[in-house]
C-alpha cells in the first residue's frame, strides 16, 4: 500500500512540473520593441484634386506615433505641430487613408487588413453616423461633405477611400476633423457606438 502511494507521489513530482519553454529569453536580453505584436504607428491621408489628379500641398498628411499607443507621444508630419489640412472652396477631392506598422520591416500596411475585414471595421469622421446611400456625412458647422467610396461585403461603407466636397459657403474658419477607426466585430451597423476604437487622430481642416 505505502509503496504504491510513494511511487504515485514520486511520479507526480517528476512528471508534472511546469516546463519552461525554450522561447523564454534571459532577463538581460529583453524582446526588442520591433519583435512585439502588431501595432499601428502611422496614419497617412493622401488627398488629391478629383479633376486635376494633383495631390494637394502637404499631402500626405501624417500622424506618427512611432511606438504605438503608450510610450512616447505621437506627432503630426510633415509640419511637426500643424495638423491643418487646407482645401479650396467648391472643389471635390479624393482621399485615401493608410494605417501602417512602421516598426516592421518591410512596413506592414494595416489598412489593407482593415479593408479585407471591412464588415468588422469602419472609419468615422467627427464621430458622426453617416446617412444615405452611399454613406455620407457633413462635418458639423463646416458644410464640408464626406462621402464613403468603398463598401464592405454587406454593402456598408468602410471609409478607407472617401470624397471630400467643399462649396463656396464653406470658406473661413478651421474645423476639427477627427478620423476614428472603429473595430466592430459582429456588430457593425453603420453607426459609431458598437465596438471599440482602434485609431483616433485629430486633424483640422480649413477651406480657403
Amino acid at each position, binding site marked *: 500500500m505505502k509503496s504504491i502511494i510513494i511511487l504515485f507521489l514520486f511520479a507526480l513530482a517528476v512528471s508534472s512540473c511546469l516546463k519552461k519553454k525554450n522561447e523564454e529569453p534571459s*532577463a538581460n536580453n529583453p524582446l526588442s520593441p520591433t519583435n512585439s505584436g*502588431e501595432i499601428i504607428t502611422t496614419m497617412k491621408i493622401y488627398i488629391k484634386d478629383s479633376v486635376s489628379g494633383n495631390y494637394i500641398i502637404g499631402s500626405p498628411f501624417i500622424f506618427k506615433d512611432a511606438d504605438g499607443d503608450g510610450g512616447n507621444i505621437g506627432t503630426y508630419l510633415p509640419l511637426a505641430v500643424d495638423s491643418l489640412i487646407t482645401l479650396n472652396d467648391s472643389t471635390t477631392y479624393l482621399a485615401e487613408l493608410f494605417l501602417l506598422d512602421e516598426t516592421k520591416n518591410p512596413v506592414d500596411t494595416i489598412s489593407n487588413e482593415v479593408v479585407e475585414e471591412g464588415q468588422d471595421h469602419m472609419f468615422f469622421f467627427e464621430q458622426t453616423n453617416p446617412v444615405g446611400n452611399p454613406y455620407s456625412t457633413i462635418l458639423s458647422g463646416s458644410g464640408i461633405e464626406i462621402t464613403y467610396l468603398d463598401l464592405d461585403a454587406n454593402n456598408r461603407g468602410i471609409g478607407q477611400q472617401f470624397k471630400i466636397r467643399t462649396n463656396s459657403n464653406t470658406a473661413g474658419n478651421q474645423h476639427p476633423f477627427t478620423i476614428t477607426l472603429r473595430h466592430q466585430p459582429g456588430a457593425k451597423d453603420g453607426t459609431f*457606438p458598437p465596438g471599440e476604437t482602434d485609431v483616433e487622430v485629430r486633424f483640422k481642416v480649413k477651406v480657403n
Partner: protein
Amino acid sequence: MSPLGATWPRSGSINKCFAPIRMRKTIQTFLFFLLLANGFAQECNFTLLGKITDKDDGEPLEFTIVSVKEINFSTNSNDKGEFKIEKLCAGDYTLRIIHLGCADTSIKVSVTKNTLVNFKLPHSLHELADVEIVERVDYKPTQTIDNIKQEEIDKAKGKTLADALKSSSGVTTLNTGATISKPMIHGMQGYRILILNNGIRQEGQQWGNEHAPEIDPFMAKNISVVKGAASVRYGSDAIAGAILLEPETLPDTAAITGEFNAIGFTNGRAGVVSGIMQGSFEKIRGFAWRVQGTMKQGGNMKTPEYYLKNTGMLEKNFSYALGYHRKKLGVEFFYSQFHSTIGVFSGAHIGNLTDLTSAFASAKPQDSLAAFSYYIGRPKQNIAHELVKTKMHIHTGLRSRLYVTAAYQYNIRKEFDKHIPKNSTSYDTTKADLDYRITSKTIDLAWEHDNINSFRGTYGASYMNQTNVYLGRYLIPNFENNTWGAFAIERYVKHKYELELGARYDEKYLHSYYYSNNVLQSPFLKFKNVSVNTGWIYKPTQQFHLFTNLSTAWRAPAVNELYSNGLHHGSASIEKGDEKIKQERCYSFITTGSFKNERIEADVTAYSNYFKGFIYLSPGTEPELTIKGAFPVFYYKQTDALISGIDYKINVEFMKNTFVQVKGMFLRGQDLSNNDWLVWMPSDRVEASLTYKLKETKKLKSTYVSASLEYVTKQWRIPQNSDYAPPPKGYYLIGFDVATKIKVKNQEIGIGVSGSNVTNKIYRDYLDRFRYYTDAVGTNIQFRLNVPFTVFDKK
C-alpha cells in the same frame, strides 16, 4: 479551531512527558479551600490552581500554556510556574499543557471542588517519544492578528481568497469585476502586503491591480491576517501587514483520512470540488503524506438586470506534501500548482478615453445582453503558478531550533487582448499579448530559542533571487532582483506583560532591462535600509489584553513604479514610472484592545501610518496624444501621506444562544504634501449580523442560522481630477447563512447554504475597477457540502 489547533496531534503519550504526581494539600491550600467553601453554592464557581515545575531541577516553569479544551480557554503560568482557572463548573476537564522544549500533553482533571494540581515536567527531549513536536502557535505575536474563523472560511469556500479575508475588520478588497479580487489591509494592497503561502512569500506579478493572488484557498487550514507593519519578521515589504495561509500539520497517527468539499453557486452557475487526503504509516514512524486538489468552473456572472459577457472562469489546482520527523530533526517537502483561466468582462475592454466616457454614460454596458455561457473568450487571463518548497528543522539544543526553508516559484501570467491583430493570417492565436514569466528562488534561515531568563527570540536571514521576462508587449521591464535581509527579535515575557524588540536590515539589488527608442537600457539600482518594531502586550486580566506596536518599515520601489510605460486597456490610461523614485518609509502605530468573557468578544484596533515618500499614481495635467486618441497620463510620484483609522468587531451573546456581531471600519487616507485625499481608499462601512445557534441534538451539531446587513458609505474623500467618474453612492447588502453538521456514524457531514445580496440590489462599489462599466453582481446563493472520511485507521 482550538487555540492550539496548529500543534502536532498526539495520542497515547500522556504519561510519558509528565504526570500529576499528587494532590499536594498544604496547610495553605487547605485553608484556601475552607475560605472559599462558602462560595460553592453557585455550581460554576470552582477554581483550579496549578503549579508547573521542571522535573529535573525543580525550577518553576513560567510561560507554560495551559488550556482547557471544554471551555476553549487558555492561560499562562506566571514566573512562579503557577496558573489559575476560575469560574469552572463541576465536571471533567481536559487540560493541555504546552511548554517549549517539552511535548504538549493532555491530562484529565475532575473538578468537583476547588482543586490544586501540580505538574512536574521533564524538561528534556530524550524522554519524549521518538516522534517530536514541531510548529507551535503557543504565543501570540505582538502585532494585531486576526485568525479567520472556521465558519468564515467555510462561508467563503469556492470564492476568492480575498473574500475569505473580508471577515476580518479592516480588510477590504480591490476588485476587477466579480472574479478578480485583491485583498487590501487598511486601504493598502499589492506590494505593501505580503502573502505567506505555507510560509513562503507569494511572488507573482503583484503590481497589477487586476492580478489576484495565485493561491488555492482550499489548501489552507488556517488563514490569518497580521494587521500593521509586519516587516521585521516577514520582509521589508510588509508595510501594511501580512496574510498567512497554513495547511494543517501532517498527521502522525497510522491512519488515512481525508475530506471532500463540493460547493455550488447560483450566480455564474459555478461549481467547485475539492478533496484532500492524508496519512502516515505505522511502520515508518514520523513519515506522513498529503495530496490535495481543487477544480472550479463558473460561467457568466449576472448583475440584477443583465449577464456579463465573458465572465466565466476555470481553475485547477493540486498540491502534495511529504514529511518526515524524527527526534531532533524534521524534513518537509511541499509542491503545488495553480492554474486558472479567467474571462475578463468584454464590455470593459475599451479603445480610448472617448469609449470610456461613453461607457460610463450608458446605463447598460456593451455586451450586457449576453446570455449565460461557460465559454471563456477574449479578453482573458491565463495564469499558472508553481511552488516547490522544502523545510528542515534541527534541534540545536534543549530549547532552540534551527529552521531552513528553500523554495522555488515559477509564475506565468498571460493576458489576451479582446481582438487578435488585423493581420491575423500570420498570427498565432495561442500567443498572449501580455506574457510575463517570473522565477523566484528563496532561502530562509530562522533560529529560535525558548525562554531563557524570560527571554525568547528569533534570529534569521533570507535571500531571494528573482528574474522576470516578458514575451509579449512591453509594460514592465525584464529584471533580475537580488534581495537579502537579516533580522533579530527578542521578547521579554512576564505574566502580566510582554515586551518585544525586533530589527531587520535589507538590501535589494535591482537590475532592469528594457528598450527605450530602440536602445537597450540596463539601469542598476541598489536599496538598503532598516526596519524596527517594538511591541508591547499588556495583560492586566485574563479577559482583557492590549497589543501595541510602534514600528518603522520601508519598501523599495517596484519595477512598475520605476519603469512602467504603457497603456492600460481596462482603465484607458497611460501609466508612467519614474526611475528617480526613492524608497518609501512608513512610521506606524497600531494598538488593539481585546476583551473576551463568556458572553462578549470584542476587538478594537486603532492605527496611524505616516509615510515619507508614499508612492502613488498622480494624474498628469496634459493628456497624451497617441494614434488611438488622447489618453490621460498617470505618473508615479511620491508624497507624504497619513493613513489612519479604527477597526472594530464586537460579538455579544445577548440572549442564550443568540449572538449579535457588529464590525466595521473608519479609514482616512490623506495626501499631506498636496493637502488632498489619497485615491482608492475604502470608505467607512459597518456590518451587523444576528446569529442563533441551535441546541445540539443526537443527529445535528453546530447548527446555526444567521442574517447580516452590510452598509458601505459613499467614498467622497477622493483627490481632485483623478477619476473619470464620480464615486458611486453608498449601498447596503443583505446576506444570510445556515449551516449544520450531521452525524453519520463517526463522521460529521457539514452542510450549509448562504446567500449574498439576496435582495438583488443594483449597486456599484468604489473599489471595483469595473464600476465604470457595469453594476456589481446580484444575488448569489452558495450551497456547500463537507464530507470528512477515513480510509483506514489502525485504531
